């Protein structure tokens, strides 16, 4: 059964089709949520919220973009809204600490890895999201433009600024 058929069946209330579509996309959605949040518990909540929202709006999916792009746009929106609220209420966790505890990539040099995470997390939300989507998750500028609802040129310029700021932040780093 292809993706379009699964979507049609979910709209009719078929939970097995729901699970099948979920299995196809959940690992990537969770990965994206984790990359953006740096916290496994939040990534779990964001993934759940994104799928609940997506399933409830499947009838609005027109197929103009790939389903994965449409779904990932919802994830980015859910995460961005949550981060905005955290900042607004001053409840942002010490991301540096969270990352150093939760991250599982032990291969990179610990100091450099820590410096990169700190530098990325100090970027403004728009630059940080664009950098993570492009350089970490590997989305194209066209896909990011759809996800963020901005022109492709804006994505390119945001990525360029994000890399420049990252380069500057890491300039003093000595290995």
């Amino acid at each position: 059964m292809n993706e379009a058929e699964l979507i049609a069946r979910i709209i009719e209330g078929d939970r097995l089709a729901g699970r099948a579509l979920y299995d196809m996309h959940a690992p990537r959605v969770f990965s994206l949520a984790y990359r953006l949040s740096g916290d496994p518990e939040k990534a779990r909540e964001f993934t759940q919220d994104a799928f609940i929202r997506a399933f409830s709006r499947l009838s609005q999916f027109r197929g103009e973009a790939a389903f994965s792009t449409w779904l990932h746009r919802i994830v980015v929106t859910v995460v961005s809204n949550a981060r905005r609220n955290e900042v607004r209420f001053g409840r942002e966790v010490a991301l540096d600490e969270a990352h150093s505890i939760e991250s599982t990539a032990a291969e990179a040099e610990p100091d450099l890895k820590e410096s990169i995470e700190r530098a990325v997390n100090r970027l403004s939300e728009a630059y940080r999201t664009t950098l993570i989507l492009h350089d970490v998750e590997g989305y194209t500028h066209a896909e990011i433009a759809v996800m963020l609802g901005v022109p492709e040129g804006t994505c390119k310029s945001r990525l360029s600024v994000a890399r420049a700021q990252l380069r500057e932040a890491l300039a003093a780093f000595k290995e």
Partner: protein
Amino acid sequence: MDEDRFEEVISDLPRSFNAPPPPPLDEMWGVIEDAHFNSPLSKLTSRSSFLTTPWLAAATLLVGIGIGALLPRAKPPATVPAPVAQSAVPRETSAVADAYRDQTHQYLGQAAALLISLPASDGSKTADSAFANKAADLLVTTRLLIDSPAASRDVKLRSLLDDLELVLVQIARLRNERSRSDLDLIHQAVEQGDVLSRLNSAVATTQSSE
């Protein structure tokens, strides 16, 4: 750090930056399945079932009638010259916008009242059921408004409606299940999303523009 090393850092980001742990697929699916497929509200989620479910169709009709009642009556066919007919188009458009604004204002007030009187974790079962039913009613209107021109023109309203939709889904689920953590989660969602103060602000905005 030189340019070459920086390029290496960038190309290594997929491996080194926030490398995700294995996703808890079954655990997450349990929550999603419960919220979407096990809830009586799941019938609301698709447009096809939405329109074929009688009471929902009735709710849609009621909102439509409400909007229609607020519109000015059509004037009898006129012997009016063309310039007047041309000016009737924007007036009609404005009347539709006014009707949506009135419906939105009424809805926002009801949503605010519901959230303000949300019971504490030790509330009674009866209260839960009444709240859940009211939330289900408001959820219908929420989803209609999300698709309405009013929300498509107003980004802040759309964002508020999106957050309200999730909160109302959670409250409506209290009809079936009840735990302290459920209500705590709802209170937390309302608080973190700043939903009440955004609601109050939206109510004030729609009121002042009347």
